[in-house]
């Protein structure tokens, strides 16, 4: 057993070394290429089958009947709504989706003061795409 602490050299070196800390808000964190970040949904490909919602372990995807009509007469389609605050980023939905309508991304800075910002509902544009795509059919409610 030696009497002199082993770390003495390393600690002396550390004084002149640059700190290992990454000052996050000032410097963006680099993430790996395949990082599982925020999910994106492509209205064009979605068929509203609901497999994603069925397989989602945390209930972050809900299939909700949404009024996609642009006219007075309401038309409802069952579309996925993403609750990012529940998402555990396992990407089971990406895997389960038969038409690859859910896209992965590496976006990781999701924090928000408002819970509403963390819910992804189909936008008006996406609604019109859906409306065009499924002119006939779709559950009425």
């Amino acid at each position, binding site marked *: *057993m*030696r*009497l*002199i*602490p*082993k*770390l003495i050299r*390393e*600690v002396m070196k550390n004084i002149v070394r640059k700190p*290992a800390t990454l000052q996050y808000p000032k410097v963006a964190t680099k*993430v*790996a*290429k*395949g*990082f*599982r970040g925020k999910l994106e949904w492509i209205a064009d490909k979605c068929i509203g089958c609901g497999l994603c919602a*069925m*397989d*989602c*372990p*945390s209930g972050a995807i809900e299939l909700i009947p949404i009024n996609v009509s642009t006219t007075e007469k309401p038309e409802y389609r069952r579309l996925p709504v993403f609750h990012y605050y529940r998402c*555990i*980023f*396992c*990407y*089971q939905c990406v*895997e*389960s989706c038969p038409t690859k309508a859910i896209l992965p991304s590496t976006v990781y800075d999701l924090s928000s003061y408002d819970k509403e910002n963390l819910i992804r509902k189909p936008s008006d544009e996406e609604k019109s795409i859906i409306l065009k795509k499924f002119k006939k059919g779709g559950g009425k409610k």
Partner: protein
Amino acid sequence: MSVINLIFGPQHPALHEPELFRFKVEGEIVVKAEPRIGYVHRGIEKLFERNSYIRGIYLSERICGICNAAHTVCYCQVVENALGIEPPPRARYLRTIVHELNRIHSHLLLLGVAAEELGFDTLFMLIWRDRELVMDLIELVTGNRVMTAFNTIGGVRRDITPEVAEKCIKALSKLEERVKYYRKVFEEDPTIRRRTVEVGVLPRKEAIKYCVVGPMARGSAVDVDIRRDWPYAAYDEIPFNVIVRDECDVWARLMVRVDETIEAINIVRYALEHLPKGEIRLPLRRAVPPAEAVSRVEAPRGELIYHLISKGGTIPYRLKVRTPTLANLLAAAKLFEGNTIADIPAILVSIDPCFACTDRVTLIDLKDNKVKRVSLRELARRCRK
């Protein structure tokens, strides 16, 4: 001297998860220790019975965040056993790689925590700084730093490309150098040795009596390792050493972990170099026929057992999980007695406690050692008592 009740927890700097230990101390000497588990009971086993097998993968991952790869490997294996399928060879190798990366990260975490509990903050910071290397690797291979979500029923979800493999090998050799340095620190540093050598001695006989598992058993000269004794994934094809030490003290348990980290680096390297070609997963099967299956895995903290009963359909009938900390905790409670207050954190950290894993459902009457089933109402009544 009067006896003081020293209560550790549920909130205490030495405990990183809520759990309660009641110590009776005379001066500095602990005369009695009582663990009281159950603060992080989350009803996970019941949740398994309400979620499909696919959701279960991610649920099992959340039993323990640190050894999540071990939990998913075990879960997927138990479902595969029930289905009677075997994942393709490449998947088995990939599973091994992620499992071992997970072990490296878990052991380095523990070694850092051990340094912190001994009051050695610098070593803690430095180990955790170098642990980032393996965290980055896990992110590169699986897509997240901690939660791997890598295994699935019948294989794995991602493949490793040659570039990634090359990066892994490069980073691992850097990491190996660092781990070897820390091995020297743990081996030679006088203050660490004074705090850990011959502290919390668990003789081999006691270790067998209390059925301790994992590094705790191997630190007490009990030569058990599920990876070798009951090989799963690709462990039957990969050569590796089981590290056993016979000092039986806190220091030996820490050294087992340091050496296992180096061994794990070698395993990953071997697996990356000998990665077989082919499919990485079988087609998804959602339903499981009526069956009963068991799976054992050597998690970083010791032997992990899953027991599945299926009555057909897409939802398990019952899934029982036995985590390593539960096996080790009772022995640890004995270890405290006769040691000083200062040794409490050292001993506690040497069992690498993961209380979130431990707290599921067991109700044991300590007075007559009977396992009882009680209703929720009675449980509430007892808690009030």
